[in-house]
């Protein structure tokens, strides 16, 4: 677990203060460009990498001051490895593990207020210093009856600041993702509702217990035990999990067998949730998993769970069915249901987007159509990134002001995106169980 380098003194809560931070970043990022071009005048070899690194540092600095939902947005952005340059990725990955701590009196106050007891009364030992930070809270270590426990504590007032935060983050995110502002609304609503859910620890505890129970049969996965009697609206108590973060796991030179085992466990975990439960742990960033040497994976943090509506599910996975492409009217119907094309689109627009979607879908769903797939295959990912880049640079796409894709696709896509990225980093060879085994 990483420790914080700088201690943060205050957490900006008011909107103006937060906005101030963003303005400061904007100015700094602007400054970095000036610096970049100035250096370029003197030294032609100055790399763009360096510029991006500077920008990432400043943006990260800002986001780390905002904690809460802004950090969460950083996490979402950091999922998009294909879209973000490497410098941004590394910094944002960091944001997934560490954010500055809160005062010890506040921690004690949260216990007294929501559980009516001090940590000293609840546990045999309690480490008042946070062992690491979650995006909307922090994690403490405790012991009880010889058992190591992890206690997740939420910052006060997080839910209140989410809406105002998102309004500030919106123009930033819109620029990075390249969406028309007014069309971004439906996505932001979706994100906002998910973020607000994440602040509801009572809901998270219930979901964590339900989903870990339902997924307990999947091989090579472990889930912590949760303790509802020591949890509240602001506190979740669970078993302390041992294991390495993904980066450390990969750096420890695990065998290919272990890598496959870890990847397979994760694949099966998501497969089962999406197709059987229709409810999915929609936060597959590496910070939510811990790996053991033999490739077993521990899963915690069910803060972000997406319930997939039946209607959306049916249409979404019809895309992987080659049969539908034989019937033009059927394809249009499915695209329409998924809001990828709109009734207001002209024939010309439809004819332009249809083949782009088809190619993209074919590439992305390829692992589903074969019985096993090597996610370590970088050429596959490179091809995807290049195609995404090609598409996003098309004049028609850049100038299209319509959002394409239903709001539900946001978290489902993100889940697969995150899963693919993790499997790629793990270089796992996965048994995907063959074409459309779930139908």
């Amino acid at each position: 677990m990483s420790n914080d380098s700088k201690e943060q003194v205050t957490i900006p809560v008011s909107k103006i203060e937060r906005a101030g931070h963003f303005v400061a970043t904007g100015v700094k990022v602007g400054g970095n460009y000036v610096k970049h071009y100035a250096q370029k005048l003197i030294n032609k070899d100055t790399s763009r990498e360096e510029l991006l690194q500077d920008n990432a540092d400043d943006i990260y600095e800002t986001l780390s001051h905002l904690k809460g939902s802004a950090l969460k947005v950083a996490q979402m952005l950091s999922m998009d490895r294909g879209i973000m340059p490497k410098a941004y990725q590394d910094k944002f990955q960091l944001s997934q593990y560490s954010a500055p701590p809160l005062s010890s009196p506040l921690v004690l106050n949260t216990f007294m207020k929501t559980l009516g007891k001090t940590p000293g009364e609840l546990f045999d030992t309690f480490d008042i210093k946070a062992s690491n930070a979650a995006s909307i809270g922090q994690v403490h270590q405790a012991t009880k009856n010889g058992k190591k426990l992890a206690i997740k504590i939420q910052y006060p007032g997080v839910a209140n600041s989410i809406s105002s935060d998102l309004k500030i983050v919106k123009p930033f995110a819109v620029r990075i993702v390249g969406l028309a502002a007014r069309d971004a609304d439906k996505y932001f609503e979706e994100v906002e509702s998910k973020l607000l859910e994440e602040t509801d620890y009572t809901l998270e505890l219930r979901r964590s217990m339900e989903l870990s129970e339902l997924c307990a049969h999947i091989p090579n996965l472990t889930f912590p035990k949760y303790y509802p009697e020591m949890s509240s609206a602001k506190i979740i108590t669970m078993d302390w999990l041992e294991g390495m973060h993904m980066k450390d796991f990969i750096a420890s030179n695990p065998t290919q067998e272990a890598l496959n085992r870890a990847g397979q466990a994760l694949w099966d975990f998501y497969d089962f949730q999406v197709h059987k439960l229709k409810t999915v742990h929609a936060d597959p960033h590496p910070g939510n998993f811990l790996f053991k040497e033999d490739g077993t994976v521990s899963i915690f943090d069910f803060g972000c769970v997406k319930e997939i509506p039946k209607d959306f599910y049916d249409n979404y996975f019809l895309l992987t069915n080659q049969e539908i492409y034989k019937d033009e009217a059927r394809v249009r119907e499915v695209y329409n249901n998924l809001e990828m094309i709109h009734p207001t689109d002209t024939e010309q627009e439809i004819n332009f987007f249809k083949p782009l979607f088809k190619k993209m879908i074919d590439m992305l769903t390829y692992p589903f159509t074969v019985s096993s797939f090597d996610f370590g295959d970088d050429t596959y990912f490179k091809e995807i990134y290049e195609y995404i880049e090609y598409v996003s640079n098309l004049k028609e796409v850049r100038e299209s002001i319509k959002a394409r894709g239903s709001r539900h696709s946001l978290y489902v896509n993100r889940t697969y995106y995150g899963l693919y990225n993790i499997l790629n980093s793990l270089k796992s060879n996965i048994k995907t169980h063959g074409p459309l085994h779930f139908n």
Partner: protein
Amino acid sequence: MDKVTIRNKYIEYVLEQGHKPNSVFSFAKSLGMEETDFYTFYSSFEAIESEFWKSTFDEALEKLAKDKTYKGYGSKDKLLTFYFVWIAILRNNRSYVLSFKDAKIKSIALTNASLSAFKTAFLEYASQLVKEGTETKELKERKFISDKYHYGLWIQTMFVLNYWVNDNSANFEMTDAAIEKAVNLSFKLLADNTLDNVIDFGKFLFQKAV
């Protein structure tokens, strides 16, 4: 009949009737006691109110005195703990506290006379914290100004009180955030050079004016 019972009866009266008793005579009568006996405990209703505020402070300090963690804290964390504990005590009497709100400013006025005993006690407590803080270098010692720090902390206490008085969030969690922020900021101001810059600038403006 003892002091605390009379105080509680008085609070009950105010909460249920929505106003103070018309006279000590009528209040004493409702308690079944002689007016003159009332004065052996309190000289006026204001004295009861004043003691109410002071008692919230005393209760908080009493709790803190028993707390082992508290003793190990630096000044900043001590003050944070004080606020959290004090607000928790006020919470038990929130309705009564709200009766002190000044309708015009929608807050409890800094000048509210019933706060005076509490203020005196808090200032003493705060100057003790400041003394500890300057000894451990948690706070910066400044000539002429350090002796005034505790007045600043009093203003901060009133800020916390009024934030809570007007807090509509569930479980008053925004007050928790406000306390954390306010104390962090004030200790930062008192600790590093920011305040010096402010003073320097103030002096400069003053010189120019003269």
